[in-house]
């Protein structure tokens, strides 16, 4: 059956900003979908508020709306574009929920839009727990017995509870019905605990009802990726087994593909149930993901849940198998059947088959607990990781070793060399509680002498996996204990995933020595293809991974290659924005006639799609791995160079090592990179150009730091040297706080000094992205931050063009940027942060690389900066690119063209994901340490509307009226009066705490007083502000903190107010400039309907 001809235009809904649980895997899936649908001749309309995505590139859709993904905005897009169909199964839960709401509001019907991919009924059957349970229980005709879900009983009395527990067997899970936020639920291991928990649960439940469910904690966990077409052909793309058993969210688990510990009978039973589910739920054209648990003692299998859409696991399964799930899902959604779609990798065989792997995939999650020190570090069924890396090896040990060294975390790779100080019991206890670092604790327990059985008892991690860890550890031990480093030992170690660095530590030599010995012995990796079919058919697409085996499959080539090093796992500070730049580089360089070679290890990204570049190496981004790839590619044909400046800090820090090993680095030289990163050297560049930086110094001790602070004056900004994402940065206001900071920073020494900078209070921060080719400078854009300096640039909202900067300042920014670009020796992209303080421009820092804001600037100005940068790195000039039309013929991003939009970028914070050990949310204050996971963009012809859109897109839409609560620090009171007054004029009722209220009243603002939580007397009249927030009686909150940026103690009122705001989902503003922007946004919302406009339309203006 060919594609459908009764529809001609399709609206694709993206997933919005990157948040925990919904990351750039949906950029990968949406990009594939848009590409496929356009190839098929459909008009593609896209809505996605996230400017950092590839899918929102104007080239990927006919009409690209960077607008909030809310039912209201999406309906406006539908009204304007009148698409025939909506595809919502490739944009995560956000897209799915939006589609359901559009159905419920009648908008889909009103505009005659058909939902394709999965029907509303199928979505509901898949997502509604009770309906889904009945569907599973209805699958009775399955080989090996009817399908099962976890057994449970609904109870109304303690007698019923006890009887249910006896029937189910301890431990049991208690879930009270209709309580907020899971209050009263818990695990009961025996009758005493059960009486306790269920008793509380029964009384907490308004219907005196609790659900008693059998515990499946510690069971083996599996997933299947299933795909179905309209002819009812169903295939299983991939099976995934979790290393971490049930109890840890699969996004936070180490996972392995294919399943390792099931016999064929068990797998086929799982397959039969999976197929039964996709049919019964009725996902008729697309993919879904189904989770299973298996009791390790008797093999009893139960179904946990399904996602009736493409998911994070689908992205992983696509990269793991070479089967492009999103692309195929899009094709079946428009009517193709699987047998009509060719398998891209083999070219000869159809997509109606099940991939088979002759390698092993390991995925390891990347966490960011260091950013949230107060958060409970244990892993639960609530996802907390911010990214992931995947490794491919010919066996589990090799894949695991590669993945752990891909984590961008020095503590991730196993430490085999150091003696272990903890006892077996301590290590087993540590390993028994899932946390970031659990697998390292498991390895240490085994090293310390724990048996596989003991570790299994403590962790329930399958003994097969534990045994593989023993294999690694034994390879390491033999290597350590042998008198000589023989070729056999070295080969065995490499075969089990040990890096040169790990071997070096075991042998007490340098990594370079190990590499030298290895090369001299000819022990080098070969590269094998991911081909979907275990070599049964020849692969036409070079999607490669390294392994220590015999035969290599790197194809020879004649064209010159450019290697592009990607950015590794997403983490806070380094996310999808860098993947965007890498993907743009590969697109530009392919077009320019180079053969592009992508190196990356992040399965969520577009860069790791097998057809994004000419070749893909799914490999760790370490010096060892990149050197081997370079060696292999050099043997395959000429190499024009390696690009290190687009993937963020990860490849940048490899530049010098690679260059020293003879690798040609194109673009800004490693020496120049060092010049910008090294404080002293950069200071000289600034001095020569006559530029000013805030006063600063370097300290190796608390005494030194205090001396510096005394000289330059408080407040000071302190941070460790060489950081990305502002890790460990803090603003301190006095000696005590400074001393505390130094004491807490574990690594302060002569080699690792702490930087102490004068902090410019109330300065305006400015971000600049620019291109430099050695002669000409092209400013990509000048962004004015909305929050004052001191809030990390990644966490602050900004506006492009700048809303308050005059021409003279812009001119000075241009001069200073040119001076730095030339002084440092940039070739390609450069990002500079300035602070404007008392009419004086200070240089805060310069980064000679693609920055986080490149995609935002590119979209706001309709200029492909990363493409231009890639071409400049390979020798083109800005003058060339201007004449070819890639860059504007005259002027640049510092002087926007007539009719260009005002673009506002807003950061999206993950605060609602993290709770403290006692269950409270972590504090939400912004500071110099970056903590946002993603960003959105709002576009309009005026700042207020653009800001309002950015707030709606980031999940905290501004109210148009209602009650406004104010509580501000003394130092902010002066500046806050005007915006508060404006809001009153706009019709808001103002509540304030005592002190604030009296200041406001003195300024003629009729503020009503409200109690702080600490002022509230038990039993007395009047609600505290926290209660009002909890009751949903507050529509907007403005709260600025007293004291330092490191946050206040959890007992303080500000903290209570802010966490209540997060829980109740009330917009919360914590800076004065933010309030000003909000006032403008609210004003523009009140003025009337906000218009939506596509990027293509903006570019035309």
């Amino acid at each position: 059956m060919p594609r459908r001809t009764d529809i001609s235009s399709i609206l694709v809904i993206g997933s919005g900003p990157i948040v925990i649980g919904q990351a750039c895997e949906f950029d990968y899936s949406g990009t594939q979908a848009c590409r496929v649908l356009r190839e098929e001749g459909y008009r593609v309309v896209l809505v996605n508020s996230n400017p950092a995505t590839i899918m929102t590139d104007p080239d990927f859709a006919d009409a690209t709306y960077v607008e909030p993904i809310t039912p209201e905005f999406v309906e406006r897009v539908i009204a304007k574009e009148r698409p025939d169909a909506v595809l919502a199964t490739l944009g995560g839960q956000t897209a799915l929920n939006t589609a359901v709401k559009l159905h419920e509001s009648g908008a889909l019907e009103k505009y005659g839009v058909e939902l394709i991919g999965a029907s509303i009924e199928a979505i509901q059957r898949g997502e509604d727990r009770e309906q889904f349970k009945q569907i599973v229980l209805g699958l009775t005709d399955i080989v090996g017995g009817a399908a099962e879900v976890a057994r449970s009983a609904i109870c109304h009395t303690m007698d019923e509870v006890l009887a249910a527990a006896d029937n189910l067997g301890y431990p049991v899970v208690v879930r009270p019905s209709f309580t907020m936020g899971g209050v009263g639920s818990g695990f009961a291991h025996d009758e005493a605990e059960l009486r306790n928990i269920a008793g509380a649960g029964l009384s907490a439940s308004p219907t005196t009802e609790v659900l008693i469910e059998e515990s499946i904690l510690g069971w083996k966990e599996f997933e299947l990726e299933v795909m179905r077409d309209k002819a009812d052909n169903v295939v299983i793309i991939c099976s995934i087994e979790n290393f971490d058993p049930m109890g840890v969210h699969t996004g936070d688990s180490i996972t392995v593909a294919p399943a390792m510990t099931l016999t064929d009978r068990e797998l086929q039973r799982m397959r039969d149930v999976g197929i039964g589910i996709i049919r019964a739920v009725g996902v008729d054209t697309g993919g879904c993901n189904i989770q299973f648990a298996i009791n390790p003692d008797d093999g009893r299998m139960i179904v946990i849940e399904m996602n009736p859409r493409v998911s994070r696991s689908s992205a992983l399964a696509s990269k793991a198998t070479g089967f492009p799930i999103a692309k195929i899902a899009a094709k079946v959604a428009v009517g193709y059947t699987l047998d009509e779609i060719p398998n891209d990798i083999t070219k000869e065989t159809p997509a109606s088959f099940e991939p088979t792997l002759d390698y092993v995939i390991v995925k390891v999650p990347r966490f960011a607990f260091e950013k949230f020190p107060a958060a409970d570090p244990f892993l639960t069924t609530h996802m907390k990781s911010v990214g992931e890396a995947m490794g491919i090896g010919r066996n589990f040990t090799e894949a695991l070793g590669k993945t752990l060294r891909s984590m961008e975390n020095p503590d991730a790779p196993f430490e085999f060399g150091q003696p272990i100080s903890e006892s077996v019991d301590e290590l087993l206890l540590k390993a028994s509680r899932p946390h970031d670092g659990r697998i390292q604790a498991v390895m240490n327990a085994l090293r310390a002498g724990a048996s596989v059985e003991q570790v299994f008892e403590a962790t329930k991690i399958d003994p097969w996996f534990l045994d593989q860890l023993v294999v690694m550890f034994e390879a390491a031990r033999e290597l350590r204990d042998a008198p000589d480093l023989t070729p056999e030992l070295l080969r065995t170690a490499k075969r089990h995933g040990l890096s040169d660095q790990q071997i070096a530590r075991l042998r007490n030599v340098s990594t370079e020595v190990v590499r030298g010995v290895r090369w001299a012995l000819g022990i080098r990796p070969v590269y094998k293809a991911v081909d979907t079919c275990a070599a049964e058919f020849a692969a036409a697409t070079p999607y490669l991974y390294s392994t220590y085996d015999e035969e290599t499959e790197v194809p020879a080539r004649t064209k010159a290659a450019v290697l592009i090093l990607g950015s590794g796992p997403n983490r806070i500070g380094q996310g999808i924005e860098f993947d965007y730049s890498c993907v743009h580089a590969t697109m530009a360089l392919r077009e320019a006639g180079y053969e592009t070679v992508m190196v990356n290890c992040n399965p969520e990204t577009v860069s790791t799609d097998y057809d994004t570049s000419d070749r893909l190496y799914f490999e760790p981004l370490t010096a060892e791995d990149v050197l081997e790839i370079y060696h292999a590619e050099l043997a395959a044909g000429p190499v024009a160079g390696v690009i290190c400046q687009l993937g963020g800090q990860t490849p940048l820090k490899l530049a010098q090592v690679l260059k020293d090993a003879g690798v040609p680095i194109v673009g800004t030289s490693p020496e120049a990179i060092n010049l910008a990163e090294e404080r002293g050297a950069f200071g000289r560049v600034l001095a020569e150009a006559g530029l000013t930086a805030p006063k600063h110094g370097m300290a190796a001790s608390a005494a030194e730091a205090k001396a510096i602070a005394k000289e330059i004056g408080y407040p000071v900004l302190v941070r460790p040297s060489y950081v990305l994402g502002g890790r460990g940065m803090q603003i301190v206001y006095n000696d005590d706080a400074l001393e505390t900071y130094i004491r807490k920073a574990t690594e302060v020494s002569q080699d690792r000094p702490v930087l102490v900078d004068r902090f410019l209070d109330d300065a305006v921060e400015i971000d600049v992205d620019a291109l430099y080719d050695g002669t000409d400078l092209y400013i990509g854009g000048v962004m004015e931050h909305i929050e004052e300096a001191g809030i990390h640039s990644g966490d602050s909202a900004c506006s492009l063009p700048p809303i308050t900067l005059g021409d003279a300042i812009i001119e000075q920014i241009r001069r200073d940027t040119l001076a730095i670009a030339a002084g440092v020796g940039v070739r390609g992209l450069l990002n500079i942060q300035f602070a404007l303080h008392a009419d004086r421009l200070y240089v805060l820092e310069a980064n000679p690389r693609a920055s986080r804001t490149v995609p935002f600037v590119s979209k706001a100005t309709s200029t492909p900066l990363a493409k231009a940068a890639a071409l400049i790195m390979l020798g083109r000039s800005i003058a060339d690119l201007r004449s070819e039309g890639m860059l504007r013929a005259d002027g640049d991003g510092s002087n926007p063209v007539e009719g260009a939009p005002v673009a506002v970028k807003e950061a999206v914070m993950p605060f609602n994901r993290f709770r403290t050990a006692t269950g409270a949310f972590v504090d939400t204050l912004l500071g110099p340490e970056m903590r946002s996971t993603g960003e959105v963009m709002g576009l309009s012809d005026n700042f207020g509307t653009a800001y309002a859109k950015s707030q709606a897109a980031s999940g905290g839409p501004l109210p148009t009226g209602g009650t406004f609560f104010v509580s501000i620090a003394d130092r902010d009171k002066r500046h806050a009066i005007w915006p508060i007054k404006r809001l009153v004029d706009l019709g808001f009722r103002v509540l304030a705490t005592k002190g604030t209220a009296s200041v406001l009243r003195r300024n003629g603002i009729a503020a009503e007083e409200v109690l702080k939580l600490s002022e509230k007397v038990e039993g007395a009249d009047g609600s505290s502000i926290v209660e009002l927030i909890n009751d949903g009686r507050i529509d907007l909150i403005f709260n600025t903190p007293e004291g330092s940026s490191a946050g206040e103690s959890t007992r303080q009122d500000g903290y209570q107010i802010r966490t209540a705001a997060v829980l109740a989902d009330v917009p919360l503003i914590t800076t004065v400039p933010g309030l000003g922007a909000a006032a403008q946004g609210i004003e523009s919302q009140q003025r009337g309907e906000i218009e939506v406009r596509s990027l293509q339309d903006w570019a035309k203006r």
Partner: protein
Amino acid sequence: MSSLPALLVLEDGRVFRGRSYGAAGETFGELVFSTGMSGYQETLTDPSYRGQVVLMTAPHIGNTGWNDEDGESGRIWVQGFIVRDPAPRPSNWRSRRKLDDELRDQGIVGISDVDTRALTRHVRDRGVMRVGISTETLNHEELLAKVTEQPLMAGADLVGDVTTDTHYLVPAQGVKRATVVAVDLGIKSMTPTQLAARGLDVHVVPAHTTFEQILEFEPDGVFFSNGPGDPATAVGPIEVLREVLKAGLPYFGICFGNQLFGRALGLDTYKLKFGHRGINQPVIDRTTGKVEITAHNHGFAVHAPLDHATPTEFGDVTVSHICLNDDVVEGLELRRDGELVAFSVQYHPEAAAGPHDANYLFDRFADVLSDRGMDAD
């Protein structure tokens, strides 16, 4: 890993060195690769692998050990076994012992720690060939000389090695619907199980059973199983099958049974370059247009026109199933006066190991039998 070094030599002279796995010693056979990621126990015990050295493309083998339920026959049939990473420890609640212990106990010579993907690509590009594995000599020229002395698979008659010695009955489950005689050419135990589950009494008989002996069971239909070797050599069973068709008895064949069906109808069989062995093969049922994911294990196939029916003395034969990967004939149907009387598939609906998508074929056979039974009443 402290096992003995082992040597593997292909008949074209390519050499791989690895470690001994399973029994020590020396073995020879035709090298084939199987791409199934699960089901090594079923594969090893499948009589169709008689005479073949099997390579598993999945790197980790032995993870679930060896259990007492999943064998497809009473013993391991492969001539040798090639894996990359044997599991040091099995982990599965049904596991009774380690795979390498089982291989050793049954005297199966294997090799591990070789580049199985390189070997697979070699066979894919150059076709199946003979192979030798040895722990007794590490001199590749010596082993090569022995490899080239081995018989070829084309022309090999191996059915006699694998068939049952005596008749046995697998009784119908539930209400009995009909009686079938299943000719064991290397039958897998899941096949009579599947037939019996549909209410059929299954009399499994040796390969050399004559048509007259078959009739003594008063069967409603006849079944020919899978099996090893070159179908062109199975002259006796083909003759029996012609008599079955002549008598108008319903027939169902699997794998070897499909090839013999083709030959009985006057179609030719040929050897594939490297065969189909795996559990992920897409086959389209041309009657329904539906694609099923199927288990395959065949080195030979039937030549038949895909685009039209071929008249035979027994009726019109059409190609009912095709492998979507390479258009190989995967099923035949014989109709007389438009009515389905006999059919066969080249792949494995009994699916052990493998997906259950093609299970409906057993239903189809049972339906043909009971329809006929009703007609007779």
